């Protein structure tokens, strides 16, 4: 990772109509630390993700993938540039507006699942609804329906510790879907799973998560799942080096 900001060298897809874009980042830069010790994680990223698209961000560790989805998801503020999500500029939103926007419009799937260990699968999956003010009983009922949809309807009352890795990731996916968000960001969703389970999780994500209005942005370095992507952006050193439609086109 370099410690200098350089101009963007690559724009994502040839942009279609702005109304068709789920995410539009222009010149996004983000660094950690201060002054001379500042390390630039993003150095002017331009990126466009279409609505209804399964978009993957790939690249070596430390290339800025996670920082970029953190900015896109509104949990990290960029230092420079703009990032619009469904035409909302999260950087210029007031803190409480951004939190509310995130609660309603963004779903998360984490590498380490991040399920609350004391809650059952249904209660975990219901969390986004509860955060949005839905009564617990109603939220759990709706979460149970989603769990059935992702194939673990018989484990709604199980605690995370009683579930396999694949089952936990399904709960995490149900949690990301339950409040019907427009954008789902996934951080290494298959890295802790074996190939077969990982493939099944990706099939599931693609089947239940995508529709015309919902968009998936997945950060991964698991080459086994590249084939599920509509488009893939290869990142390196805080910049997007290449955007392709097929894994075979990726330069290594």
């Amino acid at each position, binding site marked *: 990772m370099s410690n200098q900001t350089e101009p963007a060298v690559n724009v994502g897809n040839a942009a279609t109509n702005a109304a068709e874009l789920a995410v539009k980042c222009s010149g996004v830069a983000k660094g950690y630390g201060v002054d001379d010790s500042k390390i630039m994680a993003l150095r002017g990223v331009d990126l466009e993700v279409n609505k209804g698209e399964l978009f993957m961000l790939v690249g070596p560790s430390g290339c800025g993938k996670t920082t970029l989805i*953190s900015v896109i998801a509104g949990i990290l503020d960029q230092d420079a540039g703009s990032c619009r999500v469904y035409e909302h500029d999260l950087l210029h939103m007031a803190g409480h507006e951004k939190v509310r926007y995130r609660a309603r419009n*963004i779903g*998360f799937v984490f590498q380490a699942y991040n399920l*609350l*260990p004391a809650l059952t699968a249904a*209660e975990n999956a219901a969390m986004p609804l509860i*955060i*949005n003010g839905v009564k617990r009983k109603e939220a759990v009922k709706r979460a149970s329906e989603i769990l059935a949809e992702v194939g673990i309807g018989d484990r709604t009352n199980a605690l995370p510790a009683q579930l396999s890795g694949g089952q936990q990731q399904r709960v995490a996916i149900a949690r990301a879907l339950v409040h019907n968000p427009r954008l789902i960001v996934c951080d290494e969703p298959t890295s802790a799973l074996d190939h077969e389970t990982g493939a099944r999780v990706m099939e599931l994500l693609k089947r239940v998560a995508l529709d015309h209005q919902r968009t998936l942005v997945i950060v991964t370095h698991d080459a086994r799942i590249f084939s599920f992507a509509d488009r893939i952006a290869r990142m390196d050193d805080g910049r997007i080096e290449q955007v392709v439609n097929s894994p075979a086109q990726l330069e290594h």
Partner: protein
Amino acid sequence: MYYTALKMLTGDRSKYIGIVMGLTFASFIMTQQPAIFVGIMARTFSFITDLSQPDIWVMDPKVQFIDDTKPIQDTELYRVRGVEGVEWAVPLYKGLLKARLENGNFQTCNVIGLDDATLIGGPAVMIAGKLEDLRRSDSVIVDLDGAASKLAKRLPGGKVIPLKVGDTLELNDKRATVVGIARTSRTFQSQPVIYTTYSRATSFAPRERKLLSFILVKAKEGADRQELTKRITKITGLTAYTSDEFKSVTIGYYLKYTGIPINFGMSVLLGFIIGAATAGQTFYNFTLDNLRQFGVLKAMGTTNGQLLKMILLQALMVGSVGYGLGVGAASLFGYLLRDSVLAFKFPWQLLVLSGTGVTVICIFSALISIRKVMKLEPAIVFKG
């Protein structure tokens, strides 16, 4: 979200129990030690409490507390009786005399001499015999604890036989016959209490020019007691206190001139510090351990306000449970040892005191945890 907060708290049983135990310990110490302190302090004036009939106690101006007897002349009794507003006034002897037991040992006893005519100031609860039996020659009434312990007969095999009606002992080489056993409140000095008449008590006591310890006064109905004490003082030059004032004077002396408050204060302070440190550290560790979970909730759109309420609820929960267990344990402690020599008194003010202490601990624990969660960067959830 409150349900989630409670599930997060109780989900990890060992940590939850650790926090609750810390607060239970703090509550217990903050309740039990002051309860013993209050019990001991109450014993300092238990003799005044037991004598419920008189409204006013008259004594030498130099007297500092109930056991600090400085005799006055017998003639003072008549002067007090002449003060306007006095319904009646009777003498009371109170002094420490050595009793010689059957085995030849000596035991210092608190001898109380009651007015010969009225026996005012006598024990309210008689276990054996009657108060009126004091009118028989050489008669004394002994308190139950004294009769069963320090004045009891000890046989060669170690067997203890409590003093009973009909037994005799010697007070200052004079024969005394037990005619009754009475239940009295334990006193601070914890010596056996022997009741007899005033004239007999003064005959037991070594010869002195002045032997009258206190004058017990009943105010006339409707008379202002405060005014009457001032009037008695003005006319006789003696000090007069209402019963409540005399209790306050007695307790004030012990608080000011003995190390009891500082010793108990140190115990309570130490308990508070240890309890606060244990509970605070455990609660903070609990928050640190759950930081990632709070980060997940924050990333998913939980506001800082909601997280604040969750942590406060968790603190309230452990505080309430810990306080309940601590106070319950202290109550049980007092209940189980109610018949022992332990001084234990549990007024409602102690509940407020320990409740306040636990609240302070919980707020302190919650604050340091809240600060950490408020500053938490939700992006930590993307770190594997």
